[in-house]
């Protein structure tokens, strides 16, 4: 529970817990006040008398009732009928009555206070991390920097140190848990949550980012709607004749030269280098198509297939007519466009 339990005697702990349970209807602030001395008392009695606490003090319920009367608190509501005292408090009390004495529960409860120092560190860190998460939409590990570099580290270190110091002092003075402290800790728990959510978010975006980068900012090449890469464009005139050296531009006059350099089956397609120089947006592009045979050796072929006959169309100014290939639909490695 919330009151500092300095005793590690399981009998004292169990007795104190049962007394608390019997007083579950008392408002928490009043209860803390009332039970401030409980641990001290039980430890004193336990150290003084050899027998069980029940023998010396009566049952925890009787102790609670006596305490209640002497302190001038109203009698406990009759818990005989569950319908009268309804709601989550009652449910909670019932579950605690059933499971509270289970060995595992007792062990965990005894162990939890040991973890307090860890919480002091975490809450100090979280206070700064949450600020960073909210204002910078990012949490840097292991120390939040607040975007200030080493100054941020110092701030985090100071927050953690102050939190631990505060915790140690509160523990040393056995200050009972006040409403204010409970709310501050609750607020810091929310900070932890905020920081963790932001961390998880950061984590998942770094997981996905590489893939996004390659799609978003990598060179985008032409593809069909179904994802098939477009490695070349073979224009035909209105008369059905293949055209060569056609320069393509977009609506803004920017040359369209972003052909894919890979086909779906992994064949590499590179524009031919050499003379004559072809503009990147002159179509069809003269290309070297590199395939790999069964032994992994590259086999280079040209696309469009080199013309064996005389060029059939007039090349553009920058292209030497004699070198200009004449695309002829039909050969195996060339797509057969239907204009």
């Amino acid at each position, binding site marked *: 529970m919330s009151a500092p339990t300095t005793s590690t005697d399981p009998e004292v702990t169990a007795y104190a817990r049962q007394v608390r349970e019997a007083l579950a209807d008392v408002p928490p602030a009043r209860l803390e*006040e009332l039970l401030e001395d409980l*641990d001290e*008392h039980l430890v004193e009695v336990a150290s003084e008398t050899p027998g069980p606490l029940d023998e010396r*003090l009566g049952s925890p319920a009787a102790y609670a009732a*006596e305490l209640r009367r*002497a302190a001038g608190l109203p009698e406990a509501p009759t818990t005989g009928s569950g319908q009268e005292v309804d709601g989550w408090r009652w449910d909670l009390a019932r579950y605690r009555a059933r499971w509270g004495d289970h060995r595992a529960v007792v062990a965990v409860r005894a162990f939890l206070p040991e973890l307090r120092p860890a919480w002091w560190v975490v809450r100090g860190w979280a206070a700064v991390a949450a600020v960073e998460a909210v204002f910078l939409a990012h949490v840097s590990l292991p120390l939040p920097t607040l975007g200030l570099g080493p100054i941020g580290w110092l701030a985090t270190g100071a927050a953690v140190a102050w939190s631990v110091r505060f915790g140690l002092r509160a523990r040393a003075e*056995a200050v009972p848990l006040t409403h204010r402290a409970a709310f501050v800790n609750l607020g810091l728990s929310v900070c932890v949550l905020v920081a963790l959510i932001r961390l998880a978010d950061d984590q998942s975006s770094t997981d996905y980012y590489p893939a996004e980068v390659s799609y978003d900012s990598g060179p985008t090449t032409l593809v069909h709607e179904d994802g098939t890469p477009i490695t070349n464009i073979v224009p035909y005139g209105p008369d059905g004749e293949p055209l060569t050296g056609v320069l393509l531009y977009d609506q803004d006059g920017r040359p369209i030269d972003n052909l894919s350099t890979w086909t779906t089956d992994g064949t590499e397609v590179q524009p031919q280098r050499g003379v004559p120089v072809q503009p990147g947006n002159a179509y069809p592009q003269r290309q070297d198509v590199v395939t790999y045979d069964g032994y992994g050796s590259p086999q280079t072929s040209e696309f469009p297939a080199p013309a064996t006959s005389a060029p059939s169309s007039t090349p553009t100014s920058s292209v030497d007519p004699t070198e200009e290939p004449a695309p002829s639909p039909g050969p195996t490695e060339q797509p057969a466009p239907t204009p």
Partner: protein
Amino acid sequence: MDITQLLKGVLDLAVLAVLDGEDGYGYDVVRRLRAAGLDDVGDASVYGTLRRLYAAGHLTSYVVPSVEGPHRKYYGLNASGRAQLETSTKTWSGFADTMAALLAGEEVAA
């Protein structure tokens, strides 16, 4: 006659009286009451009474750290507590005298 029933009415006074001599922590008060002859005083009654007197503003309290056990919360009388002790003592004395006279009278009559 059940002493616990009688104690209920005068425990405030008894606790105030014990603390008037010297400040004490909860269990210390229990011990002092027992030593004074109130063997039947309930531990929880004393603690509850201390809390109630404290809440009513009759007591001051301070924590004394202890090396071997839990920290002890000491209680002492403040001005309000001493005033309360004084009036309660008068009330009690008057009541006790009345009762004594009454019982003495009955004895004579019997």
